[in-house]
């Protein structure tokens, strides 16, 4: 199965498989040209059908463990193994967005970053339902900058990262009006919208459009 970005006339690329809910898979795709992303969420029946074939959605990036299917699918087993998506789920909070974002990278072999105890303490102060998403953002920033260890300074630095996107003063002011706990997620969504529009600066026009999409949850 393939998805086509009708705007860019390009196949969207498979990114990863996540597990947003019990017996369900979220398969994320991204357009290589505009960066637009979406996740196709399967219902439990489809997921079980694929599981029963012993085939990994999106292709294999690793060697299957012995009896991967048997051990992962038996209800009660003396030798069950944790599934990657389940491991991601354990880090997720109650927010569906953070649950999805917690799984980012789970389908790809990425070397885990080291966190100092001070940096972990800082993360503990963030509400748990948003923590996985913030952690994911900080780690993406750290990897992009080539940091091997996440310190409080890296966390602080990542707050000002715009991922190559400029913000007009007016838009920045309106972003600051969004409650702090949800601001990182809103920022990501607004920047994604801006990229979809093909602009390099988030201005008040983009903010207005963003408000139309998900501003009912925010004061912006």
């Amino acid at each position, binding site marked *: *199965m*393939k998805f*086509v970005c*009708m*705007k860019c*006339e*390009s*196949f969207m*690329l*498979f990114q990863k498989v996540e597990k947003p809910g019990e*017996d369900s898979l979220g398969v994320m795709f991204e357009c290589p040209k505009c960066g637009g992303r979406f996740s196709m969420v399967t219902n*439990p*029946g489809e*997921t*079980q*059908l694929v*599981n*029963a*074939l*012993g*085939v*990994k*959605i*999106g*292709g*294999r990036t690793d*060697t299957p*463990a*012995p*009896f*991967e*299917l*048997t*051990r992962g*699918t*038996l*209800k*009660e*087993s*003396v*030798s069950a193994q944790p599934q990657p998506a389940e491991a991601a789920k354990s880090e997720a909070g109650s927010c569906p967005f953070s649950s999805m974002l917690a799984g980012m990278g789970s389908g790809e072999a990425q070397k885990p970053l080291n966190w100092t105890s001070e940096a972990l303490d800082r993360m503990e102060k963030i509400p748990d339902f948003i923590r996985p998403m913030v952690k994911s953002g900080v780690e993406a920033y750290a990897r992009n900058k080539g940091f091997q260890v996440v310190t409080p300074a890296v966390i602080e630095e990542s707050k000002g990262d715009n991922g190559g996107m400029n913000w007009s003063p007016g838009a920045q002011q309106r972003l600051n009006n969004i409650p702090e706990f949800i601001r990182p997620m809103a920022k990501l969504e607004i920047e994604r919208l801006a990229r979809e529009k093909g602009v390099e600066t988030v201005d008040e026009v983009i903010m207005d459009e963003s408000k139309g999409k998900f501003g009912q949850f925010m004061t912006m």
Partner: protein
Amino acid sequence: MAPQKDLKSILSKLQYPDDAQVMKQIVDQTIQVKTRMGRIRQKIVVMSGKGGVGKSMTTINLALAFARQGLRVGILDVDLNGPCIPLMLGMKGQQFEFTKEGAIPPVGPLGIKVASMEFFLKPDSPVRWKGSMELSPVWLGMMEMSVIREFLGDIVWGELDLLLADLPPGAAADKPPAIIGFIPELDGAVVVTTPSEVSADVVKKSLVYARDVGFHVLGVVENMSGFLCPECKTESPLFEGNIEELCKKTGVTLLGKIPFNQKLAAACDKGVPLQDESEPIVQRFQNITRKISDQLNIQVKASSKAISASPPL
């Protein structure tokens, strides 16, 4: 913004990138099964169209008989929902050891390597799958075949002279023929039945099916062929059927008859299999293995005692 084109014209310009590689994954699975099975010299399935005729009992006693002759033997217990080989061999509670190379099977009496669903299960737990798999026989069937594929492809058997696969009950166009199709370069099947006319009738269908699809049947083992009274030592038939006649009609070899034997039954139940070659019932199994060896040209490595053609019980 440029006007959007229709999907057909967009697709005509794009090359389809098959990054999911579903077919490759399935081919890889098949190659893995072939590679694992390729290291095993001879592969035999023990099957029957009918349940409860003694397939597992026959399997372990044939395995023991072959092992006594110096062969390196493995047993694959493919009866996922009713695994009983580990219990009969006194191996209940053992588990696979999982390594990067695959699952290492527990080793039982006479060095027999055993793979069974039982090794995954908690005590007294039945096989139950996650999700609503149990609601749909279609999904369940797919799932079970994939699990069997893992049993064939994921076990590190090492060098084996012989693998005996104990199949679940089922006749034509059922799970056993599908499993048989899964095992590359299978050498043949041992079909187990009782003399019961009901059992013989079902087994006959299996034999006809095997003949029609060109699958080699090594022969038939008649289990529970009679009962030897421990008190008066008189042998009495348990059923009125005629398996010899069935074999003649279908052109299949009668490999041997195994009478009901209390000592053998108790040994299987207790997980302490009979191994004393002076036991007449043990000699019956030895004779069956010789007939199989002759057909498959299996080279017996260690000399064993000369056994009369039909030892008294």
